[in-house]
């Protein structure tokens, strides 16, 4: 369990030093609480206590477009967040960064919260929360993990139960945080200064293997918050439009023809531009855009196809090509004789779930984790689909090569 060590936080000012001490103290408290959880019934008590802190009425208001959630997140907090590419630093599926494998335990104060920002917690201060993970879509039901709304030694949790009550994502709303903890009310930390607002840890949707993003921003009432149009356009061109080729290639493989691919890319760009404020600049724009594109495709596909592809994926038996060619052409030289169009045609014949996985991985070079996020499936599913997609494709290309006489083989 990570602990805040003596050198953990730069103790630049008196309030900051106090905040650091505070955090250290809370780390100890959190440890104790965790130990208590070993006792039967403790989990329920603890989560109940956490839940009470949430002003449900206020949260419910978030449904109507009022903002929800937490802390102020400064530039230094963003800088601290692990780069999205690679994602190796992220915890494994099912492990909350603060929980480890033992789900249900109260959040422990770990390294995630070292960067306490001095601005005081103000009762009735309003916060805007925006989605941290650009790959999560507004219409998807989101499951939250723990959110640290204020640094009072308590974690406010939007647990699954609560979220299921909300029925729909509350990311676009906002919430007034009215409840300030009363002194002594399950608040083990001693506060002489105004409370500090800690940044929330990156959220993670453990059930679906998808990381939630979400930065929380202080809601300044002035409308000047949104960047000027020129700036928005510049950053969009810089970060989004550069991926036009990737988007088009994927769109073409998904839709199967240039005209639909065009439409799909245009629709994607339009949606992306509208939602550009929600994209956290400098993260993984490619994955974010591909998620939008894929959603647009699925919607259109469902609309057009009354009877969507009913392929029993489990019945598709890919066969391994290598053993077939091992003696005759172990180097796979026959591949080189197959022209581009034939390869693309073979890909287009794959069932869409295999096709999309294969294209994202083998054509566009996305990582398993990125693909899992884009498709909304677990990493394990990405692996197995990819395995079968590749084997299927090899089989098709092999059959074609045999048919064309590029290789003698023994077609199945």
């Amino acid at each position, binding site marked *: 369990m990570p602990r805040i060590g003596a050198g953990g936080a730069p103790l630049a000012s008196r309030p900051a030093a106090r905040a650091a001490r505070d955090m250290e103290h809370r780390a100890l408290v959190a440890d104790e609480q965790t130990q208590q959880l070993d006792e039967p019934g403790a989990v329920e008590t603890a989560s109940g206590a956490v839940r009470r802190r949430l002003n449900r009425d206020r949260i419910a208001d978030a449904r109507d477009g009022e903002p929800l959630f937490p802390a102020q997140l400064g530039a230094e907090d963003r800088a601290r967040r692990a780069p999205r590419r690679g994602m190796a630093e992220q915890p494994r599926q099912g492990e909350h960064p603060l929980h480890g494998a033992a789900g249900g335990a109260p959040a422990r104060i770990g390294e995630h919260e070292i960067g306490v920002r001095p601005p005081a917690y103000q009762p009735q201060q309003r916060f805007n929360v925006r989605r941290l993970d650009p790959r999560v879509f507004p219409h998807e039901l989101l499951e939250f993990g723990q959110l640290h709304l204020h640094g009072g030694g308590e974690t406010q949790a939007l647990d699954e139960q609560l979220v299921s009550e909300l029925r729909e994502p509350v990311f676009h709303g906002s919430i007034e945080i009215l409840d300030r903890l009363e002194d002594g009310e399950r608040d083990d930390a001693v506060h002489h200064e105004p409370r500090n607002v800690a940044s929330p840890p990156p959220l993670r949707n453990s059930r679906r293997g998808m990381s939630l993003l979400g930065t929380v921003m202080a809601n300044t009432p002035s409308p000047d918050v949104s960047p000027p149009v020129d700036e928005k356009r510049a950053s969009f061109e810089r970060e989004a439009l550069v991926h036009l080729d990737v988007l*088009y*290639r994927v769109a073409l493989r998904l839709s199967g023809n240039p005209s639909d691919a*065009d439409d799909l890319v245009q629709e994607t760009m339009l949606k992306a531009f509208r939602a550009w404020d929600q994209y956290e600049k400098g993260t993984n724009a490619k994955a974010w855009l591909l998620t939008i594109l894929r959603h647009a495709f699925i919607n259109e596909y469902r609309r057009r196809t009354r009877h969507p592809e009913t392929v029993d994926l489990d019945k598709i038996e890919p066969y391994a090509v290598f053993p077939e060619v091992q003696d005759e052409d172990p180097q796979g030289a026959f*591949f080189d004789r*197959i022209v581009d169009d034939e390869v693309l045609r073979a890909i287009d014949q794959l069932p869409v779930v295999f096709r999309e996985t294969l294209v994202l991985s*083998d*054509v566009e*070079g996305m990582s398993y984790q990125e693909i899992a996020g884009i498709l909304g499936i677990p990493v394990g599913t990405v692996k197995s689909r990819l395995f079968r997609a590749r084997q299927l494709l*090899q089989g098709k290309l092999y059959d074609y090569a045999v048919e064309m006489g590029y290789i003698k083989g023994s077609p199945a």
Partner: protein
Amino acid sequence: MNCRECVEHLYEFLDRELTPELEREIREHLEDCPPCGEQYDFEELFLKFLRARCRTQGAPADLKKRVLRELFGE
């Protein structure tokens, strides 16, 4: 590490998606086992071939213009 396990993880190995430990085990096996080594070469070539064949195409030249026009009215 036996051949079956090696082949099972071959794609993950090629995709650089394994833990360093497993990656090392596979690499060692591949060095010691010519048939698995051959299969590795074959699969590696296949993936390179796929990438090369499918990435030649980009967006049509006028698509960017059309997107810009739609977004910014140009």
